């Protein structure tokens, strides 16, 4: 079952699951009409639709009975993710999501014991970032065991985003506590500070990225031994949108979930307009780059750098689908709540699966 399966990212998951497995897929969504429409596009008895309200625990539990795995694409995750995992634990169904909020991730990880007692595996944050970013980080550390630090960067295009949930996520993470891992300790850094020029694969190229709150600095050090530094920076395109976000934060427009809800609806409708800000506007592509390095300060030396640029739907939906199929095939360290780097044993196979779907990982010059 794909919850939020009629949304932009959910549709990407459903499409890949349909094309690369023989599983029966239930598209469960609050927007029942849209779910029905999306399911009908497949003209296959393998794809059906259901209404779901994840705020209704009883209804969600009823729906999950009989499923082998639930994929949660229903954001914003800081509001909803724990509700779906709670239902999965109660029913005893394996779980995977594309949660990208750090506070929600902590909350999900804190449900580990409940998940173990229920005998389920829950993989949290298995999309683009976190998700692909974690797999790339783990791959780098496997190939270069001397790596002591990881720099993770993402770029998201307003021309590549569709749903309100992604807007709410961005507004949430630019005003929430933001964590980095420095010298073996977690430290709080101010969002939208610590800027750095980062080169992404073309056509995105060089961008200025900033600290934003994301789960990777919280989870990677727990599973990648020897890593003592993890930083995460993100940037929205066109770059003018970042200044707009900073302004909203300064004006106090996004300091409560209720304010974010209101502003997100306005901004969602304005995404086509926002994507045209600046001289060039935004290309409808998003990306991630992970650098692994040794040393620190002036002695810091990047030893490996992997990156990927693709549409947000593909770069999020396909890793989530590959993760789901791996989970179903028991290619996962079983039991409890795990981030991708803790869950998936074989990163090479995972990346091979992505390559088969034309998700290209590029080796960048340090």
């Amino acid at each position: 079952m794909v919850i939020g399966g009629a949304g932009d990212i959910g549709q990407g998951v459903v499409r890949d699951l349909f094309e690369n497995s023989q599983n029966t897929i239930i598209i469960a969504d609050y927007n029942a009409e849209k779910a029905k429409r999306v399911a009908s596009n497949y003209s296959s008895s393998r794809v059906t639709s259901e209404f779901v309200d994840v705020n209704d625990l009883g209804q969600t539990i009823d729906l999950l009975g009989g499923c082998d795995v639930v994929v949660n694409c229903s954001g914003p995750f800081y509001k909803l993710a724990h509700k779906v995992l709670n239902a999965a634990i109660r029913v005893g169904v394996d779980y995977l999501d594309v949660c990208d909020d750090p506070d929600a991730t902590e909350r999900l990880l804190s449900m580990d014991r409940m998940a173990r007692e229920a005998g389920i595996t829950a993989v949290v944050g298995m999309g683009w970032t976190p998700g692909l970013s974690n797999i790339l980080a783990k791959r780098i550390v496997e190939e270069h065991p001397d790596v002591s630090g990881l720099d993770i960067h993402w770029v998201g295009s307003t021309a590549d985003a569709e749903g309100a949930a992604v807007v709410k996520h961005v507004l949430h993470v630019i005003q929430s506590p933001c964590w980095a891992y420095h010298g073996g300790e977690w430290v709080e850094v101010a969002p939208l500070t610590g800027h750095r020029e980062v080169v992404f694969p073309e056509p995105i190229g060089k961008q200025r990225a900033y600290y934003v709150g994301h789960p990777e600095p919280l989870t990677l050090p727990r599973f990648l031994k020897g890593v003592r530094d993890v930083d995460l920076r993100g940037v929205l395109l066109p770059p003018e949108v970042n200044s707009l976000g900073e302004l909203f934060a300064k004006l106090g427009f996004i300091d409560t979930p209720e304010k974010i809800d209101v502003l997100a609806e306005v901004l969602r409708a304005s995404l086509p307009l926002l994507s045209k800000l600046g001289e060039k506007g935004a290309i409808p592509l998003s990306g991630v780059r992970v650098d692994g390095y040794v040393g620190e300060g002036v002695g810091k030396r990047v030893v490996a750098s992997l990156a990927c640029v693709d549409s947000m739907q593909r770069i999020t939906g396909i890793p989530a689908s590959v993760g789901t199929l791996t989970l179903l095939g028991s290619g996962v360290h079983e039991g409890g709540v795990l981030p991708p780097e803790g869950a998936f044993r074989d990163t090479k196979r995972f990346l091979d699966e992505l390559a088969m779907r034309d998700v290209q990982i590029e080796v960048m010059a340090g």
Partner: protein
Amino acid sequence: MEAFRELVNRNPLVSKIIKGWDRSILIQSKDTGEAYLLIVGQGKLLSVGRAQSDAPCDIRVRASKDTLHRMFTGRAKSAELYLHGAVEVYGSPKDQLKLDGIATLLWG
């Protein structure tokens, strides 16, 4: 239009944008009634062919023949033509942004 197809398929950056974006696009000339159907799939512009002006499609683009010619040869910017009302685009906002992105990568 065949030259346009080759131009699109030769550009690896455009291929990145249209990967997984399977759409049919109907290009209509408002003054002559001519219409062409573009089929996008497998990360390529698969085909371009004459079509009925009411052919089923995901996206519909309408303009005068001269405007369409200038747009598809890169002599006029599609975003500007759209903003000035010279081109009408009927499709989802996301699809329109894809078209903008393709034009930007092809002609700057």
